[in-house]
């Protein structure tokens, strides 16, 4: 460059070149597509295959939804209306939506009652689930099971009222007698509650129509309502039972420990469907003829026992994850067993167990569809039985199962999102 002079050069740039935009292929969406979708022959093939699959799915699903019909009173009407446009026969949902949601025997003029009970659920459950709400609202939650029972099953309000009174009196007696010791408290609870229920039974019999709603039998419950009833009741009952079993399994008293171990291992070793068959079929042989031990109650007991064994194992995992120092710290503060568990051990153990508990809860909710095998008409039972085998709708599969999927997905996804939110709220460690 030494013999190069400024004069011998035609043009010398005096200013800096303004920064050019990067080449199109190296920026924005195109760059992203190149790097993520077409970065090599293998990925290119996979992308094209993926696009084809998406196209194939959408080209089936979109005309199915858009060309579908909500008119018509049987599958033959539907086929006439649709022709060969590939649309779905959604008329079955229009005609049978009430059966899908409430079962086919729940009186249609009473649909508002379970609906109201369902709406009230959203008023009464948040204070349990969301920590920020005022604690006083928990009273509403305590009243809810009795109110919901009254709304869904009907009958005199005295029945749930005295059930509640019995529990309250029992609890009051328990707190008094607990000062002596726990066993005395438990005995006082049982005595007080039974006396209250016994007296309540007389009063209810005397005034069977006091504030009575039209009664609906358990066997008339069905549809998605039945899944929700079974799911909600069994999850809420099996959680406390599971905690007790988990603590019992860690107990130092051999009797309690082995009772819990045997129970958990037995229930976990048996398929749920066999327990349901026991509830439905075998119990009928043991009960005196003519007794009608409510089938829903039998099923609730069986599913609750089943779920509580799984929840107990999940919580035991949480208990085992706590360092021994936590137990020793509780002891060194002079707390007794109940206080140590309530204030120190369980809050931590339960927090660790949340994903596992939610997993069991979601699984349990979906398992409630198994009751269709023992001829109860839950959502799946309704579809498999009465609707798919009616002369009008035999042959309509996709529309009905799609509707069932949507209903279950909404609920299960909601539970899952809530549990993730709860985990974030309770996160106290530094990660």
């Amino acid at each position, binding site marked *: 460059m030494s013999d190069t002079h400024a004069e011998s050069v035609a043009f010398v740039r005096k200013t800096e070149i303004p920064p050019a935009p990067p080449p199109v292929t190296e920026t924005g969406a195109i760059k992203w597509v190149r790097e993520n979708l077409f970065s090599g022959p293998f990925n290119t093939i996979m992308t094209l295959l993926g696009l084809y699959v998406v196209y194939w799915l959408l080209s089936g699903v979109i005309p199915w939804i858009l060309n579908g019909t909500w008119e018509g009173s*049987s*599958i*033959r009407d539907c*086929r006439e209306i649709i022709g060969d446009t590939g649309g779905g026969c959604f008329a079955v949902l229009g*005609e*049978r939506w009430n*059966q899908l949601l409430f*079962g*086919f*025997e*729940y009186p*249609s003029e009473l649909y508002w009652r379970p609906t109201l009970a369902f709406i009230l659920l959203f008023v009464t459950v948040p204070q349990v689930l969301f920590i920020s709400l005022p604690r006083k609202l928990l009273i509403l939650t305590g009243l809810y*099971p*009795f109110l*919901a*029972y009254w709304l869904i099953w009907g009958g005199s309000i005295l*029945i*749930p009222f005295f*059930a509640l009174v*019995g529990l309250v009196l029992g609890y009051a007696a328990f707190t008094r007698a607990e000062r002596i010791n726990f066993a005395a408290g438990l005995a006082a609870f049982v005595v007080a*509650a039974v006396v209250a*229920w016994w007296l309540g*039974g007389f009063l209810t019999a005397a005034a069977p129509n006091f504030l009575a709603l039209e009664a609906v039998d358990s*066997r008339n419950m069905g549809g998605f309502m039945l899944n929700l*009833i079974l799911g909600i*009741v069994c999850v809420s009952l099996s959680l406390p039972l599971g905690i007790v079993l988990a603590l019992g399994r860690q107990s130092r008293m051999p009797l309690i420990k082995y009772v819990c171990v045997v129970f958990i291992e037995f229930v976990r070793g048996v398929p749920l469907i066999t327990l349901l*068959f026991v509830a*439905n*079929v075998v119990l*009928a*042989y043991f*009960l*005196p*003829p*003519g*007794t*009608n*031990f*409510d089938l829903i*109650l039998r099923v*609730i007991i069986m599913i609750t026992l089943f779920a509580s064994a799984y929840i107990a194992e999940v919580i035991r995992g949480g208990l085992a994850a706590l360092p021994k120092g936590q137990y020793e710290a509780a002891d060194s503060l002079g707390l007794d067993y109940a206080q140590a568990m309530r204030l120190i051990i369980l809050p931590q153990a339960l927090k660790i167990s949340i994903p596992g508990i939610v997993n069991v809860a979601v699984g349990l909710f979906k398992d409630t569809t198994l009751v269709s*095998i*023992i*001829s109860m*008409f839950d959502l799946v*039972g309704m579809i*498999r*039985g*009465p*609707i*798919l*085998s*009616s*002369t*009008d709708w*035999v*042959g309509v*599969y996709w529309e009905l199962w799609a509707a069932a999927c949507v209903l279950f997905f909404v609920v299960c996804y909601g539970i899952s999102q809530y549990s993730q939110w709860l985990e974030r709220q309770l996160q106290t460690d530094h990660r």
Partner: protein
Amino acid sequence: MNKSVFFGALAFTGLAAAGASAATLEDVQARGTLNCGVTTGVPGFAEPDADGVWQGFDVAVCRAVAAAVLGDPNAVEFVPTTGKTRFTSLASGEIDMLARNTTWTFSRDTDLKFDFTGVNYYDGQGFMVPADLGVSSATELDGATVCIQTGTTTELNLADYFRVNDMSYEPVPIETGAEAVQQFLAGACDVYTTDRSALAAQRAGFENPDDYTILPEVVSKEPLGPLVRHGDSEWFDIVKWTLYALIAAEEYGVTQENVEQLASEATDNPEVNRLLGTEGELGAMIGLNQTWAKDAIAAVGNYGEIFSTNIGEETAIGLARGLNAQYTDGGLIYAPPFR
């Protein structure tokens, strides 16, 4: 949900039930409703309609018995049972009778301790083929692939039939009926075989039912009928003769429409008079009132009417009477004399 209330109720009903007797008729009358076991749904035979009211060929038998015993065809508590729970429900006393297209077999009658009160539908295993296969008889099915439900008597009947006729076939075993239909429609097999009533019912749901033919051969005997528990002959008689009353009504030309008129005064036909209670004491002989058969016929119609409204040729299911015609028309439906 409150357990304790349920348990309390359970204890009370337990005490009340301890005094119950084995007499089904008294139990039913005291209860005011008939507990009748049906299927969870078979098109035409038992299905709840859009309003949740049970309809169908088997359901009509339940309603007829309720009308005969209680005078009210709607005083029936329908208990849906599956193939797995039906026999235990009946044996345990949860239901008073089972009207659920159940095949009358030796072992069910004797070993399971039930009594079949008669046959309300003579079914038999048949074959369905696509029309463009060009087959008109089951004897031309040599070498065919056949969709069958596993673990059923149809599987055994199929093997027998092909062996007797010296033909070979390739089975395509499938778990449920609905699945089998899907496989058949998708062309996974040439032939689909099951009971002929089920074939007709399922064909009614096809997009183009006329593209499929049900072959004329019937390869097994499947007599379907209502059944009750062993040990209560009075109740057995009531269910049996209610069914026969419906059958006899068709034979004598008593219909839902003219039954009131025929029963209002004695007619020229003494058999009709005895059936409808204007002559003789037949009702008292089986412990019911004099109009029991009239009530049953007025509630659901005679056998022929039940057949044609639920599964007959005018319905979507479109079954011909065939074996289920009156014996006077060459069928097997036959009621003993009302005398």
